[in-house]
């Protein structure tokens, strides 16, 4: 008979799956998302296999397996010899379909939960910055943000990702930075899908500006509210795209 302690919820957490097995699919998913949302464009060359392995901090075998999957689905192709390597293969319509499939595969509950998590990290980041008395550091972050002038959704997502990551960095918390990087990699590209739409893009970017202004003038709550609104706008768009994608799939299956 097992010791009763091993049944408590606390000890259960210790033995929760670490997720090693999921490495290949997580790498594949991340690259697929980058291709689907245009962060990696057709013709872009990926870093070499060993560079990727050291970046992802996984073994070479894991990287090779993930790349193999992407080749099999025609998302990547390989060129041999000098100047060779793995290249992004898809044309834009293929990327579009990929994105639709990815969105349709998520449940509504999953999406809202990911958005809650994303929002919570940034809330924590903003509160920490003000508790640490570091609001003035955001002047430089604001300058960089205002200088960016993205012309399409993919560029705008890069700007958004850069902003969110730098904010996390300003909180001076290693763990918050790590969580931000993780949620951004797992969900950022999808969450900010609304940046594809010109009007939504300008609303979201205006709210980013408001968030930074409010932070700098010491109004943390107003800053958090502005950020929440930006996430909600994009989330709504993502959910409606998901409904479209699912309807599309249903019709095709008929």
């Amino acid at each position, binding site marked *: 008979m097992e010791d009763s302690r091993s049944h408590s919820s606390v000890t259960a957490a210790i033995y929760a799956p670490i997720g090693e097995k999921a490495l290949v699919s997580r790498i594949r998913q991340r690259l697929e998302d980058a291709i689907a949302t245009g962060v990696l464009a057709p013709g872009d060359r990926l*870093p070499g296999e060993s*560079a990727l392995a050291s970046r992802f901090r996984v073994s070479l075998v894991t990287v090779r397996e993930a790349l193999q999957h992407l080749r099999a689905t025609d998302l990547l192709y390989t060129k041999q010899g000098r100047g060779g390597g793995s290249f992004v293969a898809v044309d834009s319509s293929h990327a579009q379909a990929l994105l639709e499939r990815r969105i349709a595969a998520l449940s509504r509950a999953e999406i809202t939960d990911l958005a809650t998590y994303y929002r919570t990290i940034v809330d924590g980041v903003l509160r920490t910055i003000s508790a*640490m008395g570091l609001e003035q*550091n955001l002047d430089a972050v604001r300058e*960089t943000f205002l200088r960016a002038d993205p012309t399409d959704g993919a560029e705008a997502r*890069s700007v958004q*990702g850069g902003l969110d990551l730098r904010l996390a*960095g300003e909180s001076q918390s*290693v763990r918050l*930075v790590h969580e931000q990087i993780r949620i951004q990699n797992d969900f950022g590209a999808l969450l900010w899908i609304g940046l594809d739409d010109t009007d939504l893009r300008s609303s979201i970017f205006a709210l980013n500006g408001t968030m930074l202004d409010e932070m700098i003038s010491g109004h943390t709550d107003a800053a958090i509210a502005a950020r929440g609104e930006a996430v909600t706008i994009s989330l709504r768009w993502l959910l409606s795209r998901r409904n479209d994608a699912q309807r599309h799939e249903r019709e095709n299956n008929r």
Partner: protein
Amino acid sequence: MTHKGTNVRTIAETPEITRLVDVITAWHARVPETIERVSSVAIEALSTTPRSLEARLEEVVFDALNSTSKFAGAGIVSVHPAVLDQSRSLLWWVTQRENGRVEPLPLDADLTELGTYQAGLEDIEWYRVPATTRRPHMTGPFVDYMCTDQFAFTFTVPLEISSEFYGVAGIDMTVRSLEEEIESLLEDVSDEAILLSNNDLVAISLDPQFATGSRLKSRQLEAYDLSPVPGTFLSIAAPH
């Protein structure tokens, strides 16, 4: 060094303070000469054979990083066309300890999780301040999530060729490397002593209410006597 508060009092020079100052000075001693080596190699390469820039920098940086365990990274950062024509804007290497061996690893912002971080290089304190003041600067402590994932100080100096600004040369040192050496010495000064960076930023605080990386307001600073560590950007603070 100047201090923000108007009526800042200086700590009396006790043997404890002197010992602490000596250790901090020794910790900092090799910073200026090491950056000078990196920057003179960069300037030399840029003014004669720009093609050799990366290889020559790599050599001097490897040497510096292997010479002591105190340095967590070193290199140059530039957005000058003369550098960008040859290579990347971040020519920076970080120490990666594997199986007890130090292995310098090139920092490749294009390959970090979010390459766009690079877009704002010029706005980041360790670049912006030397670019504006044309003087050496110490940034931090801040979380260096581009390389060490730890609290670090980044020391940077302007890279100038015939008074034209080319970028910065610098090194990273972890806060931990300093903390290990001075923690008990700080305790000797006061149970609530703080090591401050650039006058008001908390580097190491024995008082748990102040986190490393947070900024003290001038009203909070009034409760402390300060003692600057000559030749550094650090000062020791002890409550009156």
